[in-house]
């Protein structure tokens, strides 16, 4: 941020991040709420608007950048993580967001996704997981539940889905969070934390596609059931959940177990306390992997560990080398090494 900018007051409202384009998602699509949450989070970050770059691939969700009044690049299917990596490496001062879907990030874009995560390049990956290809009108995706009947699996899929969090941790990921579309408050908070985290932040948004996979997350996030079937993790807090906040998670051997406060003498002290900053991903891995009906689905920031970021290390290496470098401009380089003079 240069001086002129620092003098600007940045009293943004979410509206400042709305572009002039009409939002074209289906009425009722979960994407609308995510857009609001992002606009809200951004308005509160205190980062000048021109420092944001939103990079997306192809998919319903990937139309996102058009609706943001920031720098934006709606690219090609699956490649946004690579493009975003280039943007961030080139200009580490930008706040770079990669908007993507379950197909875009994990089918065609799987490789760029895991490599961005491994490099821990400081981009924010918001993965809209509707467990379906929305834009192409309803084929199964790598996160579709086994057995799902779709246009390309008329008799049910025979493939086990990826779990986003597991994949992220398997790829050396240092930040993973989960939210769902209609919880704008939680989403806003998570996006804000993701933005502040230095390194690749992956946020999985459980998103509803009203047209091709309607209600797929309702069993977990439905208004009636969500308190009992999700757990919002908070650092330093015991892992309690349930309508009456009376259920909790404990460790039994190497596995997590759901217990009820008061039953079998369980008290709050027995309940695991969340620590997203623990580098050993052991428990976080299990938390990310919890599935209904055995467990509540974990929401919030599951893992958030500091580490070197790619772009900062690159800058540092350049700086170090330039300090002692003999070659400082092209004329130096051209004349370096063995040369001879013809007169």
């Amino acid at each position, binding site marked *: 941020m240069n001086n002129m900018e620092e003098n600007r007051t940045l009293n943004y409202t979410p509206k400042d991040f709305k572009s002039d384009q009409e939002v074209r998602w289906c009425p009722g699509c979960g994407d609308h709420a995510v857009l609001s949450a992002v606009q809200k989070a951004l308005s509160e970050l205190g980062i000048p608007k021109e420092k944001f770059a939103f990079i997306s691939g192809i998919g319903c969700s990937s139309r996102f950048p058009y609706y943001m009044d920031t720098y934006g690049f709606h690219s090609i299917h699956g490649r946004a993580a690579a493009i975003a990596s280039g943007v961030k490496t080139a200009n580490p001062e930008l706040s770079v967001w990669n908007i993507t879907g379950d197909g875009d990030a994990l089918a065609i874009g799987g490789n760029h996704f895991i*490599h961005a995560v491994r490099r821990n390049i400081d981009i924010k990956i918001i993965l809209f997981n509707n467990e379906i290809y929305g834009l192409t009108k309803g084929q199964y995706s790598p996160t579709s539940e086994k057995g799902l009947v779709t246009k390309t699996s008329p008799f049910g899929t025979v493939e086990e889905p990826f779990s986003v969090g597991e994949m992220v941790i398997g790829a050396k990921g240092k930040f993973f969070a989960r939210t769902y579309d209609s919880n704008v408050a939680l989403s806003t908070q998570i996006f804000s934390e993701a933005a502040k985290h230095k390194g690749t932040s992956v946020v999985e948004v459980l998103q509803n596609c009203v047209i091709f996979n309607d209600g797929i997350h309702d069993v977990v996030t439905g208004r009636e059931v969500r308190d009992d079937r999700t757990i919002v993790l908070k650092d330093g807090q015991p892992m309690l959940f349930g309508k009456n906040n009376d259920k909790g998670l404990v460790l039994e051997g190497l596995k997590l177990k759901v217990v009820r406060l008061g039953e079998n003498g369980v008290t709050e002290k027995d309940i695991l306390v969340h620590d997203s900053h623990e580098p050993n991903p052991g428990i976080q891995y299990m938390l990310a992997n919890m599935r209904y009906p055995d467990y509540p689905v974990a929401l919030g920031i599951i893992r958030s560990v500091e580490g070197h970021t790619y772009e900062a290390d690159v800058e540092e290496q350049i700086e170090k080398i330039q300090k002692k470098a003999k070659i400082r401009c092209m004329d130096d380089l051209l004349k370096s090494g063995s040369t001879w003079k013809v007169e």
Partner: protein
Amino acid sequence: MAKNSKVIKREEVVIRFSGDSGDGMQLTGTLFSDTAALFGNDLSTFPDYPAEIRAPQGTVGGVSGFQIHLGHSEINTPGDYADVLVAMNPAAIKANAIWVKPGGTIIFDKDNFTEKNIERAGYISDPIAEEKLENYNIIPAPISSMVREALKDFGLDPKSVLRTKNMFALGMVYWLFDRKLKYTEQYFDKKFANKPEIAEANKVALRKGYYYAETIEALNPVIIIEPAQIDPGIYRNICGNTATAWGFLAAAEKAGLKTFIGSYPITPATGILEEMALRKDLGVKSFQAEDEIAGICTALGASFAGYLAVTSTSGPGLALKSEAIGLAVMAELPVVIVDVQRGGPSTGLPTKTEQADLLQALYGRNGESPVVVIAASTPSNCFHYAFTAAKIAIEHMTPVILLTDGYLANGTEPWKIPEMKDLPEIKPPYAEKNDIPFLPYKRDCERLVRAWAVPGTPGLEHRIGGLEKTMKGTVSYIPENHEQMVRIRADKVARIADEIPDLAVWGESSGDLLLTGWGGSQGYLMTAANELREEGYKVSLVCFNFINPLPKNVREVFSKFTKIAVAELNLGQFADYLRIKYPEFDYHKINKVQGMPFTIKEIKENCIKILEDE
């Protein structure tokens, strides 16, 4: 120079060092060519690596070669046939026998012609006899035993001792061409400053070889090649890959930009990435991507962020980048894609050269997807064309494909170092700060170039992407808008013709035959055309560097010749392209697809046949 030797002068000579992969032939060749360059000869060199993996020792597959062509007059190629072959083992004879000029000199390490090695090379008893080389100037030298003897008191292990064999051989060749040992000795002093005994051993071997040659008198007469008439200036040897990398760096400096390269290693293009990775001193950000697609996509990202962005690859990698190049066409962002062509299709002949990616570069994308295509034509002019590719990309906001090839990439030649101040300016078409609201696809009327609004600039926020758009950047399915945009994108590239130089004719501007080629064949074509002219044929030459768009005077040039021949290392891709662009002419095709450059002889024979037909 030794006293009692005959001396002859020659205009030019071709020397080939050849041995097992472990024999150090690349270093030997490099040292010789440096010495020749310092002396003032013009020269051209080409290393001939074995296929990627080391083949078993002593086999033909494991032979590594380095050819040098040096002369008193202009040298355009590393030469077809060698005057002198240095063969460190029988396999080196096997691999190179047909490339030695009849009656040429063959120096070999006779100690290495053991039964086992002879058999491994695929001979039965005597390679020289089996190849019918008896009438050549055969110099069997006991190289291994001589170095063993010479270094016996050095206390080195046998392996290290034998590693100096190449210097013994080099010493012999220096004697033969009356060269000084000084540069080479300095090299070892510097290289092994911390291991003086190794430096000394190499220097001893070098001198012993020199004296041995003097002694045996078989290497008579000594051959003198006078310095060439060369433009005054400071020179260096440079290979195509380094020249390419440096061309980009120079362009970035001129444009006031930083450089980003996003690449995935692939033979023979890796050297560009490797050179860029070294240039952290100049602030280069080199990104070794997870694959070729990420290579170009990170580059596009960097370009969006305001860098001079480059991605380098070879044919199979270019295929993988196809889709993203299309995105660059739509996004109208500057990016240079270097394709160092190799033998195809598919993995093909990865270490060999070819010119068969031309049509891929021109047409290998979905939809109407015009890009600028430029080809370098000598190892050192890779600098100029990389610079030019970057200049065009930046100034016209367009992807540019720069074609080089395996021959240019690895070949070296002396190069007169330019001064940065003499290179042309490069002006990025930045958006104006007060250009609000910023319309990403608004163009200047003349060149149809859109403005570059770099993220971080307040007020110029905008969105671009791969869907068809209006001037404002709004996605549009309107039929007429699409047609207009398709034609504008084509026109934008076509108008670059206004800024590229006219095609130059070497030789008379009219005649019986216009020999035509492009890219890396230039040196061979020039030599062939020169020789044909000397033999009295009315042959001129044009060599294309700008392929899309073509220079504006093509029709005018072509129309002055009775016949046109197009020589290229493929089945006729450029000739076909010319048919599309200038259907009024007839093109005779001269083609070769063998993973190696033309020989002068092949080109000449083909030209004469075309001239004589009908």
